[in-house]
């Protein structure tokens, strides 16, 4: 399994990660080794096998659709690095 420098940079962009130049090659190598290792799954016959996302059989419980106490605006904003007028403030996106 080949992982290229461009693959690493593409994933970093998608994940909003910045990599220092010195980090890129070790990351590329680690990803390549781990994904090559993971190709062991190709040896399994998975035809007709259902995927499992939740291993315990259960139905999703429902709750009453009622208004209950939750975080106040002040609590939600208490950890904000920057907030103004009751909102999280961030740098310009566009």
């Amino acid at each position, binding site marked *: 399994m080949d*992982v290229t420098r461009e*693959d*690493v940079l*593409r*994933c*970093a962009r*998608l*994940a*909003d*990660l*910045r*990599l*220092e130049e010195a*980090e890129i090659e070790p*990351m590329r190598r*680690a*990803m390549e*080794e*781990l*994904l090559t*290792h*993971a190709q*062991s*799954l*190709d040896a*399994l016959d*998975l035809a007709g*096998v*259902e*995927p*499992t*996302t*939740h*291993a*315990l059989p*259960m139905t*999703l*419980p429902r*709750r009453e659709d009622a208004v209950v106490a939750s*975080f106040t605006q002040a*609590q*939600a904003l*208490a*950890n*904000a*690095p*920057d907030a103004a007028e009751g909102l*999280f403030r*961030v*740098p*310009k*996106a566009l």
Partner: protein
Amino acid sequence: MAAGTVLEWREGLDQGDLSAVSLVQAAFDRMDRLEPTLNALVWRDREGALGAAREADRRLHAGERSPMLGVPFILKDNFNWAGTPMGCGSKILQGYQSPYDATVVARLLRAGAVPLAKANMDEFAMGSSGEYSAFGPTRNPWDGSRVPGGSSSGSIVSVAASYAPFALGSDTGGSVRLPAGFCNVTALRPTYGVLSRHGLTAMASSLDQPGPVARSAADLAKGFAVLAGRDPLDSTSVDIPGAERLEDLRPADLAGLRIGLPKEYFGEGIEAPVREAVAAALKVFESQGAILEEVSLPHTAWALDTYYLLCTSEVGSNLSRFDGVRYGARVPDGGFHAMLAATRDAGLGAEVKRRILLGTFCLSKGYYEAFYLKALKARTLIAADFAKAFAKVDVLATPTSPALPFRFGEKSADPIAMYLADAYSVAAPLAALPCMSIPAGFAPSPDTPSKRLPVGLQLIGPALSDVRLLELAHAFQCCTDHHAQSPDLST
């Protein structure tokens, strides 16, 4: 007093021979003495703990009796505890103060248990050794040159070093069991959903479970009694049968118990001292009338790859919330996306970045079917292996880890070597099964034969058999004293 158990302390508190305040004072004296060496904690508050202890003493004087009233405990630093900092072993949450209690924390506090401290951990619970914390590594109290195991390194070491007789860790692929085996304590990873995840910082949501830690199964059951059960705030949470047996745990009758030994876990990869200690522990079960039987879990060889594909994929998604917008330390750098990237670059360590990148790759266009979907299907086969085994036997027993605690730096530069440390602990979580590590015995340290290193025995049960599993462990601990052994921390 320092090395007391939950059972002893509960009795002393009820009879008025002990006070919660005196237990807290002794615990802080011990932490002050040992923390410069062990580094198991990231935050502690003596005054706050004394306040909680005084309230517990007031309730005791008023005649209240309950399984954890007045008992000190320690929390892994990925649980929210209102009004205190939470760092998850990462720099990115610098300055974060929890605005609410995790359900498991709220239940312990309501029961009158006394919180002492937040415990060190591998960053965002990603690690098998305790070396990947931004706040420095935790040391194994049995041999300071060796790792305690991770990621719940601090919670486990806190119990092993007798800071507190009870702690909460979390287990995604082995994070309470692996360190419990390395440090000679008892830890349970419950059936997925038995403990609420509300307020536990998510790593891999389909696998994460809070994991209680104590010296013995009987102690652990006291805490588990107040923790277990459905929580309306976690839609995957479930009630547990037999919960009423936890508060006063009785040993199971081992006569006729069928213990399955999966042959894939007893192959060539096990270090000899681990094999010997586990064999001796199994003999104890046999001497009490249990029947040992070889079974096969044929897809074991694929469990590790399946686990790491699913785990990293979920990590890639879950960790996107740490971006300097709503909490944590923001690093401004021009526009919005530059700020996110600068914040994450400054705040996240190499292992976390590696897993985010891998997960992002596995979920990206063209690779989803090749990796993530394949892993979900392999998970089905792995769960089916267990179901087949449990048609023949009552419980499975394996070593917790094929190896003794390793030296610092031995695996930290090689991601695959580090992931292989989890080889025996990742399969049961994929199948949502309850499993625990209990002290099985000791082996001489390879470099310093005068030092002993612990070996863990892993028990895996069918879904929702958590109480039964604790009763089996308790029966074993009634005939052995490995769990009562403490490391020598006198100097």
